[in-house]
């Protein structure tokens, strides 16, 4: 091969990835602009305490958003993750405080519960061919009801297990002065990094994109696309289990009535971060930036004493704007 063509080939990947990179830069610069604007507007915003509060507030939604990113890239949707998260937290509370299982086993219960219901959604969608929207809406109500039944409609407290709250609120780096980042935030970052590696470096990740791009093509290439599609929902469920642990630990209790609404925040984070609702495109980093944009916005508006009702309205407008920009970008192509 002549040298020139090697050079051309080497230069090409940069050119191809530029569109994705540009949109990530767009989301990232929006985040920075928001932070600068709030810092200028209020002296209370850019303070260590507040920044840690923002990260902590992002952790649970952020973890859920990372999970649902896989599902959305396959071209699907999972409306059950919020209530599933709650059900996982109820199950882990039940396991630890009622059945008196070791805490580690209790955590495993949460993750296995998540995987089981993720698997259920996946089978409904891939095998029984239900539309993802309907299938996971069903699982949403299913897990919502089960949470109330298992917890007998009452919160379950971890009062006798002080270690449990350390999972979220403790800080393994607490010994370093001024670096009191709660474990929940660290776990969020670890989940994100591992997910990013899975998405970009493994066959599972490759099939996730491929299914979202053209499922029939994947199937006709001799790949068992159903299995990988179910896998995306199982992974999303497992991550909902992790979110369930985080939120239970943070509240030091399992709150069976909680959960509804978390899925919409997670979906919003994905969309703002550039994941395409029609599948085939998306990044974990984008999703994380999207999740931070939502919390920074809520946090900043609260510091500026904007009433909560208006915070919601503004977040809605931001999401519409983000999706509109995404549509424009697609049209240009």
């Amino acid at each position, binding site marked *: *091969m002549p040298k020139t063509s090697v050079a*051309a*080939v080497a230069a*090409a*990947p940069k050119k*191809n990835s530029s569109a994705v990179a540009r949109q990530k830069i767009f989301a990232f610069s929006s985040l920075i602009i928001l932070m600068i604007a709030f810092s200028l507007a209020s002296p209370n915003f850019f303070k260590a305490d507040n920044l840690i509060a923002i990260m902590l507030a992002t952790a649970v939604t952020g973890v859920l958003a990372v999970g649902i990113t896989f599902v959305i890239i396959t071209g699907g949707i999972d409306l059950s993750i919020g209530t599933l998260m709650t059900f996982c937290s109820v199950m882990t509370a039940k396991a630890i405080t009622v059945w008196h299982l070791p805490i580690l086993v209790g955590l495993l219960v949460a993750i296995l519960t998540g995987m089981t219901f993720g698997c259920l959604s996946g089978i409904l969608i891939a095998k029984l061919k239900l539309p993802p929207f309907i299938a996971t809406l069903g699982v949403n109500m299913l897990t919502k009801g089960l949470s109330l039944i298992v917890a007998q409609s009452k919160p379950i407290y971890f009062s006798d297990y002080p270690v449990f709250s350390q999972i979220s609120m403790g800080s393994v780096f607490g010994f370093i002065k001024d670096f009191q980042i709660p474990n929940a935030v660290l776990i969020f970052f670890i989940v994100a990094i591992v997910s990013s590696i899975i998405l970009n*470096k*493994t*066959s599972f990740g*490759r*099939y996730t*994109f*491929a299914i*979202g*791009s*053209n499922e*029939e*093509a*994947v*199937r*006709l*290439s*001799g*790949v068992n696309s159903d299995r990988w599609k179910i896998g995306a929902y199982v992974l999303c469920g497992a991550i909902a289990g992790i979110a369930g642990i985080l939120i239970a630990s943070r509240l030091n209790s399992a709150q069976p009535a909680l959960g509804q609404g978390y899925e919409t925040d997670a979906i919003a984070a994905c969309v703002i971060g550039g994941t395409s609702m029609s599948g*085939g*495109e998306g990044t974990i980093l984008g999703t994380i930036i999207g999740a931070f944009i939502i919390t920074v916005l809520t946090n900043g508006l609260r510091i500026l004493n904007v009433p909560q009702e208006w915070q919601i309205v503004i977040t809605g407008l931001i999401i519409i704007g983000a999706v509109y920009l995404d549509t424009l970008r697609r049209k240009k192509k």
Partner: protein
Amino acid sequence: MAEPLIAVKNLNKSFPGVQALKDVQFDLFPGEIHTLVGENGAGKSTLMKIIAGIYQKDSGEILLAGKPIDIANPRSALDHGISIIHQELNMMNHLTVAQNIFIGREPKKAKGLFLDEKKLNDDARSLFALLKLNIDPTTKMGDLTIAKQQMVEIIKAISYNSKVLIMDEPTAALNATEIDELFAVMRNLRSKGIGIIYISHRMDELFRISDRITVMRDGQYIGTFRAADANLDQIISLMVGRKIEQSAARAHDCRDQPVVLKVSGLSRGKVLKDVGFEVHKGEVLGLAGLMGAGRTEAARAIFGADPIDAGEVWVDGKKVHIQRPADAVHHGIGYLSEDRKRYGLAVGLDVETNSGLASLKQFTGPAGFVKSKQLRAIAQDTANKLAIKTPSLQQKVKYLSGGNQQKVVIAKWLIRNCDILFFDEPTRGIDVGAKQEIYRLINELADSGKTIIMISSELPEILRMSDRIVVMCEGRVTGELMASEATQEKVMKLATQRETMVQKANSN
């Protein structure tokens, strides 16, 4: 030639209500291009899908190198060295070329945990080198032209070490140069001992590329001929089972008739540059050119489907402003898209609804209720006039053949009372018999005073159907010919005229 690569004997397959294949036989030798022809519904695709493991046979035998085999699914076909390139390309547009080729077989590293992207690209590169193709494996699939995507599909197929390659209408969307390139690749594969089963509706290609030709009709095997011994008329009459009257070329001179549609200075970005032409009442104007010449773009711009930078349109001598398709329809312009299923029909709805789709307003009472009796009457009337073959008006359009679907689109615009009709590739994907009927319809429409602008990539079709031909190249009108003086060579010369030698003699 020794043992056939693949041989099919006494193959039967039925679907609910129809026997798709009856005692079909077929064989393919190494280093051979064996073309399979037949009308739509003749069973070609069913046969190929059975060989590729997508359908299961009811009875009969498939022999691979003399041994009977069972092809349970697409994977098993691939394992047996049988690859199929589908009519509708099956691509993952968001993935790169190399990722598409090796989907499901990605090279791994770190004990199988991670993908080896470098080896993936290197492997793809060496495959391209094998066929002397110049495609960058790291390009996103969606950024390639259809022709290049097809080459990638072929590469993907042979990367399975396939001995048998099935190509279902690969040239449908290619221009002449791209077809030449594809044929070169096919001959190259043939010389490497690969057997190719080739399905095409383009009769002019048959004898250029085939070694043998097998004809199928109504799910039955009709016969196999050496290309060198057969001729086109013979093949066509076997395909349709009856003599086809080739309707005579039109070549009416309508220039003394009033100008119904006039376009001038139509420009849009790099796609359309100062396009102008006139069409007369009762005339069939052929818009010729290679793929990407801007013919469809011109039609869509006139129809208001795409925005324009500049340009003027006159209908019946009056200047009109068309900003959206609704305006065009209001002025009596109808557009029959090349992609019927996507832009022309609501395939999940029935014939009646589709026929009335453009004129529902006329059939809606003041309270908003549809006057269904009137609509049904006119739909039935039009269906009879166009001889649409359907069990009833309530049949869903997706169950009709391509030719009949096209007629439903025509019915839609006739009911809307359109006097100017753009036909964009009206016979793409339509079999020989139905083609004749579409031609006859276009002739009748023109004779009854409608004005027709026909876009076609098939030169024989342009020459036969047009009264006058406007040729485009790279967004410009490069010339105009009366049908009586036009030849394939003259049209091709204009269609490849890249210099700015716009002939304005006739167009203004």
